[in-house]
């Protein structure tokens, strides 16, 4: 290694959700500091849910995150239902899965196209691409619109869904609208293929960096797990969802307002690539084809490939949405009255949010008032892995120009699609 001095301080990293800093300090080729810092203002959802009633929990916790508000809403409802011993109807579960695919698609398109693609095309944002790659930008907005319209159609709003409620829906989508939406999914798949071709043509811009880690994701024998499943670790086997504490060991570090997590090693990864590594065999045929085209093979240990795994999941979510709509239309939508019998108890809900495994864990008193709550956020679980990747990546790129080192480290953090406001909004409450 050459004797080099490098000083990088990225204050409030751009094109990520929330506020984080990157610091790298190298003297004579020796790394003195290499840090991923989370400086987001904490929001204390524990104080917000303390003493609130069961029927407000979804409304409040949805606001943890604007990008994955649907995942927070659904997992919140699942936790409350588990606490009250409620099993929602098959129709409710099918509609929730459909809604969940809408968010997965929306979130992934946002990340891959608006946040990552500018790096691959050597620009600072999507805005200059409106001039240089107008067709591609219009395709991106079209797919993004498709995703949002699905969320609107099922959830009543693109962000912070309205219609979802404990044990059901306050309003059902019109079957005619579902039918019309399904037709447009064909165009959506064609658009996604165009975007996959574009990413394939830029694949050499993704750094070739490998660091094996532990991968944690929900898993199921029947389907590619997003809405439900057991928790699988690439190192430690599978546990039922309510035993999440066996895998998730949270700790506080001084340089971060967000908690960190570890399991068998110093860190683990959650999100699209973890899901792909654990569950790839259950992807839809179209999704598998795009994975092959983009050179994504399990197990993949390159974090920069998270974006590719997200694109693969986009195809999966559109194909699965079509299948779910067919099932829903075939069974016919029936108005159901959500009945809720409130009782004291604890309930754990798990889901795969776009960025990974998410848990809400509530305890209610007999009046349905929340006494304790714990929330495990995907990005929290990834912070430690981002740090370990940075420590492994930095020494291998010190011979590059400082600007290039900075960009590569930025791209690494961005690859994880961190949802930093989520991660600093953790909840843990114990009511006195």
């Amino acid at each position, binding site marked *: 290694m050459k004797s080099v001095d490098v000083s990088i301080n990225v204050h409030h990293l751009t094109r990520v959700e929330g506020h984080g800093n990157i610091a790298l300090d190298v003297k004579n080729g020796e790394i003195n500091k290499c840090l991923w810092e989370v400086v987001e203002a904490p929001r204390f959802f524990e104080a917000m849910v303390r003493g609130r009633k069961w029927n407000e929990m979804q409304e409040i916790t949805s606001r943890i995150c604007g990008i994955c508000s649907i995942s927070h809403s659904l997992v919140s409802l699942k936790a409350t239902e588990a606490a009250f011993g409620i099993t929602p109807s098959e129709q409710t579960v099918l509609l929730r899965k459909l809604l969940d695919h809408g968010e997965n698609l929306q979130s992934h398109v946002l990340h891959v196209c608006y946040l990552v693609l500018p790096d691959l095309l050597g620009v600072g*944002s999507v805005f200059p691409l*409106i001039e240089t790659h107008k067709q591609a930008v219009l395709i991106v907005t079209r797919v993004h*619109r498709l995703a949002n319209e699905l969320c609107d159609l099922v959830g009543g709003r693109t962000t912070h869904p309205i219609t979802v409620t404990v044990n059901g829906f306050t309003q059902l989508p019109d079957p005619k609208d579902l039918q019309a939406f399904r037709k447009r999914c064909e165009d959506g798949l064609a658009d996604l293929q165009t975007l996959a071709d574009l990413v394939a043509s830029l694949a050499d811009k993704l750094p070739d960096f490998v660091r094996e880690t532990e991968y944690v994701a929900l898993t199921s024998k029947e389907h590619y797990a997003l809405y439900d499943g057991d928790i699988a670790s690439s190192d430690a086997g599978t546990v039922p969802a309510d035993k999440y504490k066996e895998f998730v060991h949270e700790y506080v570090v001084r340089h971060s307002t967000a908690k960190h997590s570890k399991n068998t090693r110093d860190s683990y990864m959650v999100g699209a690539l973890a899901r792909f590594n654990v569950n790839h065999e259950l992807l839809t045929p179209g999704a598998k084809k795009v994975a092959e085209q983009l050179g994504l093979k399990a197990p993949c240990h390159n974090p920069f490939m998270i974006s590719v795994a997200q694109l693969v999941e986009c195809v999966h979510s559109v194909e699965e949405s079509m299948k779910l709509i067919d099932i829903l239309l075939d069974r016919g939508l029936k108005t159901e009255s959500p009945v809720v019998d409130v009782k004291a108890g604890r309930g754990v809900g798990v889901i795969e949010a776009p960025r990974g495994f998410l848990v809400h864990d509530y305890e209610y008193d007999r009046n349905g008032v929340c006494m304790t709550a714990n929330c495990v956020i995907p990005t929290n679980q990834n912070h430690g892995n981002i740090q370990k990747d940075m420590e492994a990546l930095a020494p291998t790129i010190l011979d590059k120009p400082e600007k290039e080192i900075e960009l590569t480290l930025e791209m690494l953090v961005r690859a994880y699609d961190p949802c930093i406001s989520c991660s600093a909004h953790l909840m843990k409450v114990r009511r006195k």
Partner: protein
Amino acid sequence: MKPKVGIFDFASCEGCELQIVNLEEDVVGLVSAVDVVSFREAMKEHSDDYDIAIVEGSITRQSDEARLKNIRENAKIVVALGACACIGGINALKNTKDLDEVMKIVYGDKADWFETYPARPIDAVVKVDYYVPGCPIDRTEFLGVVKSLLLGKEPEIPNYPLCVECKLAENQCVFEKDMFCLGPVTRAGCNARCPSSGSDCVGCRGLVDNPNKEAQKEVLEKFGLTVDDVLARFTLFGSYQEVNDK
């Protein structure tokens, strides 16, 4: 010369900024009419030279005040984006609790590593020129405000209760369904989105000027609903006002 715009965020879920992105093809039109010079969530470039600052989020710690004051100094017009920035929003739920206790619950014995204070809307720290309310904001309303500003007109945000829009939408009154609704005191402008989706208004757009809260309580009592439950509903998005009005 196109007006220069900066978009900024403080404590929030960033869902309102997402609504700007969710304008989809209209964003393409919008960025041809203005020059976006700072938008951390979407672009790497940054400049302190802007005419209009659009600010999402509440202020929840002393150290964020300087950044907001700096934005105010740089901008000719400051627009508060969404409930957190306009009224404190859901962040202010913690204002009803003992903050030292809250810190300990989350961070344990590491509580003194981090700072926080009661959440507040941005106009508790700097002068705000215009407000786009809601959690999240309504995209069409946002586009209307931006268009007005570009034309040099005063943006119009309704100052009548949500009930007006709910009646126009021909919804069954939420009270008649034995549910609460903050529609009678909440600022309209969202086309009564939640009641129209089979739910109730939770007051995310804040109160109309001079709301008749007492009348609302009477209505609720008429339907056999308790004042305590209603007050809890007010605090969902309106804790900043509830705590400060006391």
